[in-house]
């Protein structure tokens, strides 16, 4: 079964969708969308470095994403507005990454496949990495779920319950770095944030509890993967962007549905 590249692609996409769902909900609730983007953009620098030192791309991307996320954490609230800080760091990391890649003349690399993903080229080994990463993210967030939710609601409320919101922020940062690293192959660095945010946003009108929203986001993410891949195959379109397009259409449908229902009642 795993011999079929379409099956491997679907499994890779589903793995990322599962990790992205609960994490994406927090990204939406905490208004970290741009933070996710910045972390993902920085990952291209990681890709370049790992190719230069012939390391695993996964490790390199994760390390740089993690450093990036931690730097932002550290620098926030020190004089610059968050979006300025993220803009500076994200785009300079992306630019340095692209420049660094150009020095790698000895190695032929297809930059496009890292910017937009190459889900159809997922190997068995990649699949192992993606699923282990996804599992790790789900376990991490599942373990800290209540504490994360409490600190998302209000930091002082968290402190009063003897939860350290700074530590919980760190958990999210680590989860984000892992997700970015495993999602590069699937949608590429430019569309990772889309995979985090769009299913969660599409799930919002359909949910009454945070858990419900995370599950719905997961379902929408998986559905988008399967339909998007099928569409890419039939229409001969790029696979990663096709998945994101399907997710976006789901978002459109769910928000229209919600507003139609709320005007009637």
């Amino acid at each position: 079964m795993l011999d079929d590249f379409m099956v491997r692609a679907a499994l890779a996409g589903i793995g990322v969708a599962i990790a992205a769902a609960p994490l994406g909900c927090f990204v939406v609730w905490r208004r970290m969308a741009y933070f996710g983007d910045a972390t993902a953009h920085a990952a291209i620098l990681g890709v370049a470095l790992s190719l230069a030192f012939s390391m695993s791309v996964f490790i390199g991307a994760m390390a740089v994403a993690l450093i990036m996320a931690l730097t932002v954490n550290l620098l926030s609230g020190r004089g610059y507005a968050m979006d300025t800080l993220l803009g500076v760091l994200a785009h300079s990391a992306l630019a340095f990454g692209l420049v660094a890649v150009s020095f790698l003349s000895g190695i032929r690399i297809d930059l496009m496949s890292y910017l937009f993903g190459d889900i159809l080229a997922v190997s068995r080994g990649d699949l192992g990495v993606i699923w282990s990463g996804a599992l790790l993210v789900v376990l991490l967030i599942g373990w800290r779920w209540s504490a994360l939710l409490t600190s998302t609601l209000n930091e002082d409320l968290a402190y009063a319950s003897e939860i350290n919101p700074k530590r919980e922020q760190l958990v999210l940062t680590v989860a984000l770095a892992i997700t970015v690293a495993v999602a590069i192959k699937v949608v590429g660095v430019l569309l990772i944030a889309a995979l985090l945010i769009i299913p969660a946003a599409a799930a919002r009108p359909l949910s009454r509890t945070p858990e419900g929203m995370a599950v719905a986001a997961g379902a929408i993410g998986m559905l988008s993967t399967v339909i998007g891949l099928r569409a890419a195959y039939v229409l001969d379109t790029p696979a990663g962007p096709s998945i994101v397009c399907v997710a976006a259409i789901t978002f459109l449908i769910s928000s229209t549905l919600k507003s139609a229902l709320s005007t009637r009642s």
Partner: protein
Amino acid sequence: MNLVDVEGLSVRYGARTVLSHVSLGVAKGEIVTIVGPNGSGKTSLLRAIIGAVKPAQGKVTRGADVKIGYVPQKLHIDETLPMTVTRFLNLPHSVAAEDIQAALTQAGVPNLSKSQLSQLSGGQFQRVLLARALIGNPDLLLLDEATQGLDQRGSASFYQQIEAVRQETGCAVLMISHELHVVMSASDRVICLNGHVCCEGTPAVVASAPEYRALFGTGTGGALALYQHDHDHNHDHAEAAE
């Protein structure tokens, strides 16, 4: 043995000192109100008690096994976060359904368990926050300007609720307020704060204390004087008359 003891507490944010050498204690079952102008360090004091800010000096000691219920100043729930009242009361630890119903009843909102937080009115929301603080039968309730954004009737009825809760459960209450006249009648003790403890005592003692008058003026106009207060005040009758 006090539930909470604050000894010589100083809090600094960067170079700015917001509290210096504040000492106070809350005994079992008493209602203590902290009043003070904006920027007098009231919220920082409460945050130091719950452990959200580290003291630059001094210490905060909680009695062994003292449970604290905390009602924050305001809670902004992002529209994107779906959350029912029941789910909210189950954070961070899940609680038996009867305990949730009991807490909601005690807070005066028995019928809201299935509502979405984002659809509650200001008064309902504050009561739900109170209900959450009441879960687990706290020995001490901490309220940070819990009636901000409520109209006068709303806040009066909220404070009546607090008094009723105290009578029913016997828990102590430490609260911050700028609404002096509503609060003071219910308090056993009032602490007047302005970066340091200006004066403290029973409501009657504090209301007639020169330090208090210097801060808030006299008569019912006092609540307004609060916002015009100058930090470099002088504890002197003559100054207060200005």
